[in-house]
């Protein structure tokens, strides 16, 4: 178990509150329900692992929490997400973009690094998106962070020149450069061997401890789930109580 325990948070106010989330996609004119009324509360500083099989709606849930997509409205889907007291449904597109830039750090299974940019640029671009131009201090912070992540000698390298573990460390540095209060990780170790995956989780753990960040990790790995404060199981679009 990493960070503070579930018991300590039981009486605290939820930092992230998701209630009755529905999400249906239309594929080839067929409606495919992915989330069927998911509710979730995460306390500030808590790390929750969302466990489930492929297609259970884990990633969709993460996208909704991160403001990359919106839950269904009307009918059964009257879902609501609030983060730190802010109702995401009330945010217009531009505000939702700002929310992602300022409050959320995404880590993806496939890293999603920009291939034309160097390691350093891939990290600093998140700061640029958040604040426009960046100063020497931001650049220095990125260099320092990459040094801590063991990539001090790879700053000018392109993603194609890195191993999977190195790429994920770069992606992690990009997610953390703006010190977001909420970290959303989608299978962060899914493409890595256990040892490298462990290193990534250690880095996430260290960041969370240092900054009291709230974290939701989507995984199908029990090993990863065991390191979270709490585990939520998603089965066919609903939270399983079993």
């Amino acid at each position, binding site marked *: 178990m990493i960070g503070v325990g579930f018991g300590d948070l039981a009486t605290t106010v939820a930092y992230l509150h998701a209630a009755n989330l529905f999400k249906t996609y239309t594929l080839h004119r067929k409606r495919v329900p992915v989330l069927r009324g998911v509710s979730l509360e995460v306390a500030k500083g808590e790390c929750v692992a969302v466990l489930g099989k492929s297609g259970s709606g884990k990633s969709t849930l993460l996208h909704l929490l991160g403001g990359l997509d919106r839950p269904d409205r009307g009918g059964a889907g009257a879902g609501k997400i609030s983060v730190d007291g802010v109702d995401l449904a009330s945010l217009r597109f531009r505000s939702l973009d700002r929310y992602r830039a300022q409050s959320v750090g995404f880590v993806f299974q496939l890293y999603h*690094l920009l291939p034309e940019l160097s390691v350093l640029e891939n990290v600093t671009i998140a700061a640029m998106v958040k604040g426009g131009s960046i100063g020497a201090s931001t650049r220095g912070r990125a260099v320092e962070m990459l040094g801590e992540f063991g990539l001090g000698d790879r700053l000018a390298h392109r993603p194609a020149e890195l191993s999977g573990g190195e790429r994920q460390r770069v992606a992690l540095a990009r997610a953390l450069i703006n010190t977001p209060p909420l970290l959303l990780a989608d299978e962060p170790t899914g493409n890595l061997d256990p040892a490298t995956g462990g290193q990534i989780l250690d880095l996430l753990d260290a960041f969370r401890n240092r900054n009291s960040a709230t974290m939701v990790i989507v995984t199908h790995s029990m090993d990863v789930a065991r390191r979270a404060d709490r585990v939520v199981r998603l089965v066919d679009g609903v939270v399983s109580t079993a």
Partner: protein
Amino acid sequence: MYQILLNKKYLTGKVMPLLAALAVALCTTMVLVVWSVMGGFLSTLLAQGRAMMGDVAIHWPTTGFAHYDDLISRLEEDKSMVAGATPVIETLAMASLPDNRIEGVQVKGIDAASYARVVDFDQTLWWRPMTEALPRDVERRDPRLDPRSAERLSQALADARAMARPMVPGGPAVPAAITGIEVTGYSRRSREGFYNINEGLLRPQPDGGVKSVGSFAPDATITLRMVPFDEGGREVSLVPGVFPIANEFRTGVYDIDKRTVFVEFKKLQEMLKMNGGTVVTRDQADNDLFAAGSPKATGVVVPARATTVLVRAAAGVSPDALRAHCTKVYRQFAAAHVRGVPPPEMVESNNLIRTWEMQNATLVGAVKKETAMVLLLLWLISFVASFLILAIFWAMISEKTKDIGTLRAIGASGAGVAGIWIIYGLVIGVIGSVLGVALACVIVVNINPIHEWLGTALGLYVWDPRVYYFTQIPSKVEPVRALVVGLSGVMFSLVGAIVPAVRAAAMKPVSALRFE
């Protein structure tokens, strides 16, 4: 900021933007070269015509109008508007050419001294000794360069300036004609732009045979048959006149060079009975064109007439401004000669005070329309470049879908993502346009040497001076045109970038991230 960073990377790391910039550059070059040449062609045509015919003509055809000398004095009073004015008589004639052909020509009676103040007539006189060859005459085959002909050519030039030449060698000088260089058909223009005089021409004869005729027009004579009209517009009788040809002129406007013969003003005035004098007999019932109901009595002095007064604008005065000034002066002039000159309302309603451009509206209009049509076609072709850029950007955005998803995930807005491609299009447009305009300038400035090279190396002469008015292809790039074409290149590029940019902005982040 991140848009600039990404643009820097995309622009330097891919071949596609280079191709897009190249497409913009080629289109820009193509449009600017054609516009410069066609526009230069039109400008030269206008300048040439203006130089030959003055800026404004006040015209009353056939019968002409009296007191033209007073009108000229009134016009020349305001030196800030008028540089000079000259009387001209214009009429039609049947010309018997030296080889017995009959051609219809326009005869212009000019007063050499004042005519030279109004139009650049002297510089159009073709036969004169020369030391410097025409630009394309690299082999110096122009007969005017031959020092053995210098004396004869000098004589021809002097005869033209005096508008007189002896009918036979050694005889007394008599009023002479100056014919347009295409009138006699003696002189044939070479590819280099000069006229040959060395070859004798064979002319068909009525008996089926051919006759060799001399090919130097200033050695020949021309017979002009004209119909004079009295001040009432009635023809009097057919008047023939034989004129030695003093010289030939070339304006570069084929219609003028083919159909115009200049003769001395007083001589023509006399032939057409427009020289004034005392009316000996007069029918009381006659119609007076300008003062009906006021018949002239026997013994009244009728003033001399001219059909046209040509006016040259002072420096900096536009033809249209001069035309307005001439209209104003004509009203004052007509008020001073009531019943003696055409009323101003008739002159104005018949549009008889005209700029050179108005007089030659058909020719100028045709060239203008041709230029506009060619440009329109080229703009349309250039618009294709927009679609090329659209296609290139569309492909790039498809390739970058995942990256767009990533950018949206880290907080980039739809507008911010669109901005990447708009800036990209702008940069490609600017680079392409700058390159294109620079290339066009190099081509236009060197278009004549390039054309020469094409002719020498490949036998490809697109601009044949035997066909076109000018020996040289216009080779000046107007800065305003370059600016318009350059900005259009940028605009087309931006237009091509907008649709893909909107597509990028409209991408759903989740779909983009999941794009395979």
